[in-house]
């Protein structure tokens, strides 16, 4: 890539006779760089399936995709935030808090004067998501009204939300979320355990969340405004965009997505414990970055993030399957993330060189 880039650069100064061929080469390189997440994913599948015959089986693919689903939903939420130039470190903790709130409602109900109320599963899930959204709103208010840097505000929330999750049960686990017919709260396993048409419900939910997110980011004024805020906040203000409102909204979306992911995880485990989804925020940010979302804001796609989540999930599970130690898994994952950012920058350079030449 670097060679092509250098060649392209030199040529920009004084175009040699074979300029078109070089340009074509550079364009091909750019296409490859743009689709790099997909390229990496295909390479991963080829490599792992040649080492292990189990890797490419239907059951393993479904299992891996189910693992991907939770991180992908977290990462989609975080992508909204990163597109505005912010960051959300609190999503893992929000997932944990939502897990405990919902788990508590299913396990011991809500104590009110005069007795205990049990809600149906649908209502419990809704409450969990609303809790996540509210925590996100607090993040957004801290960042806009009180001008706390997003990193700091959400780092603080990382601790606060996790602490709140632990306080909820005094550190204990809600071991049984199955509910009873008498209380009318059975069926929590549906979202994390059951399948429809052979595909886990969690995966269907991921697909729906992703589809909605794609629609919002590409087809609505709100989506365009998110990109504008991340690309140039001052220009956004001058264009009459209510920047604070946009910013609060993306943290709410991120919180809601995190809560949903936490609930899927809880349903899958069948129990709610306060350490649910600890450090998941890092995987989510990694997926967004791998998928080409620029941490500086204004650039990125939901599809890219989902692909990034697939790369991380398929890589981790593949390494487990072929028996690589967890220590090496960590090293490989970290290296892949850094490499992704390097290629992202190569793409930016190549793109601006090509743009300049056509202009």
């Amino acid at each position: 890539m670097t060679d092509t880039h250098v060649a392209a650069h030199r040529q920009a100064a004084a175009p040699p006779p074979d300029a078109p061929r070089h340009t074509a080469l550079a364009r091909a390189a750019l296409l490859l760089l743009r689709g790099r997440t997909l390229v990496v994913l295909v390479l991963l599948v080829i490599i792992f399936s040649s080492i292990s015959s189990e890797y490419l089986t239907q059951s393993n693919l479904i299992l891996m995709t189910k693992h991907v689903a939770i991180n992908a939903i977290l990462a989609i939420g975080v992508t909204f935030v990163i597109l505005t130039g912010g960051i959300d470190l609190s999503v893992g903790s929000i997932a944990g808090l939502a897990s405990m709130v919902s788990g508590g409602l299913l396990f011991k109900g809500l104590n009110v004067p005069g007795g205990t109320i049990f809600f149906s599963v649908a209502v419990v899930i809704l409450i969990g998501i609303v809790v996540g959204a509210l925590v996100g709103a607090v993040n957004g208010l801290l960042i806009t009204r009180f001008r706390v840097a997003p990193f700091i505000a959400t780092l603080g929330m990382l601790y606060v939300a996790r602490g709140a999750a632990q306080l909820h049960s005094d550190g204990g686990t809600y071991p049984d979320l199955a509910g009873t017919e008498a209380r009318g709260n059975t069926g929590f396993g549906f979202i994390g355990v059951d399948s429809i048409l052979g595909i886990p419900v969690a995966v269907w939910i991921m697909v729906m969340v992703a589809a909605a997110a794609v629609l919002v980011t590409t087809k609505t004024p709100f989506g365009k405004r998110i990109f504008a805020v991340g690309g140039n906040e001052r220009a956004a203000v001058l264009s009459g965009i209510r920047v604070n409102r946009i910013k609060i909204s993306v943290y709410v979306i991120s919180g809601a997505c995190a809560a949903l992911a936490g609930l899927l995880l809880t349903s899958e485990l069948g129990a709610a414990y306060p350490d649910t989804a600890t450090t998941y925020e890092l995987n989510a940010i990694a997926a967004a970055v791998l998928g080409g979302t620029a941490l500086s804001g204004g650039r990125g796609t939901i599809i890219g993030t989902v692909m990034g989540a697939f790369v991380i999930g398929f890589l981790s599970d593949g390494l487990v399957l072929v028996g690589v130690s967890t220590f090496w898994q960590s090293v490989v994952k970290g290296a892949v993330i850094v490499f992704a950012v390097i290629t992202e920058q190569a793409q930016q350079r190549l793109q601006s060189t090509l743009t300049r030449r056509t202009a």
Partner: protein
Amino acid sequence: MPEILEAHHISKKYGGVRALKDVTFTAYRGQVNVLVGENGAGKSTLMKILSGSEQPTSGEILLDGEPVQLGSPREAQARGIGIIHQELSLFPNLTIADNLFAGRELRRGGRFVDAAAQRRRAREVLQRLGQDRLAPDTLVGDLPIGQQQLVEIGRALLTDVRVLIMDEPTSALSNHEVDVLFGVMAELRRDDVTVIYISHKLDEFRRIGDWVTVFRDGGLVAHESMSRTDTGWIVRQMVGRDPDSLYARNSAPVGDVLLDVRGLTVPGPVQVDDVSLTVRAGEVVGIYGLMGAGRTELVETLMGMRRPSAGDVVIRGTHEPKGTVQARMAAGLALVPEDRQRDGLVPTMSVRENILLATLARMTRGGLLNGGTEQRTADGKVGELAIKSPGLGALVTALSGGNQQKVVLARALLTDPVVLLLDEPTRGIDVGAKAQIAALMADLAAQGFGVLFISSELAEVMAMADRVLVMARGRVTAEFTAGSVTEEALVAASASDSVLEATK
């Protein structure tokens, strides 16, 4: 007269814009060489080349008659060429002494910073600058801008400079500080140091300059001994003979008052002080003034980006008290900002997205953006304003400066304004694009818009405006009609009051 630093046939291109055209400039040894010209005339570009921070596209630089390569500011410094930039390059979090020696700390034992020696030398430099009472341990961030500027000059004095370039060093200085600076310059001249001095303030540089060189539109138009010139001659050279041929003049009949501003006051480092003005339909009103006169702050406040402490804004006869960007936009104002990179464009977005940014809500059907409407709307504006672009989907950064400016203008026009506020609409774009923007403004006035524009260029403001307001230190200090305005009067009104204010 021995020449020390010469630029021979220097040209410089930025993308498609020619910032310098075949300029041959000579600085005489031990003299104060003054450079004047309007914004974008090429002075600063030439100084960047002479101080090594930019490379010329063609031409050569001679130092003491020998051709030299100035590949970096460090190389230029090593040859004794120092520069003081208009924008300060100090570290506000460090002390005066630390700032003076940043990057070239005095050492003890070759390894450790000799803080005592630095303080001693710093005190000497401050004394030379007439700032004996200033402690070297003061944080630079705690100093007023004028003294910060002196620290910057102190940095240059510490090195062995033979040629010292100053890019508008007095724009933020009080009268007393200007006197100190001129004293330092006179002393430098005695020490056989050559000074190249860029300034806008005619009354000031005539006191100190030995030679004057005038730039216009990227070319050097005049070079004369200061004693053989007068203010009128310099202004004529700056403006050129026939500005009217370049700029289209509005001839629309004037209608109702569209914008009525009364007693607007905005606190801040650059303040707006009790400004009242009106803009009528079909009228082009210019605001002339120096940098820091409060013009940008005025239009930003009108647009709702700053909070005034007093004053009323009446748009089309209706009070608009809310003062948010959204409210002002809805009432009929639109602003094309001065710094389009910083305030205007979203560089990560396409031409189309940038054009439609302020009016996205209108492009929807059933809550979703309608690609067809977007395309038609953007296409319409591109045609109307003759925006040249590789395509609506291309990144906006691929466009030339003039076309980028038209993109911002297109966005503003789409919000259906009644009064357009344009802050330095022709800054940083080439002459051809300037003429186009001027024609567009006249055209808008003819369609019944009110146009309020800011300009630092005498020729532009005189040729384009039906009425000219002059601002200095946040106040409107003079008002002229197109018939009564003269260059001298504008220059006097823009500078004199700032002097009066400073002595208070």
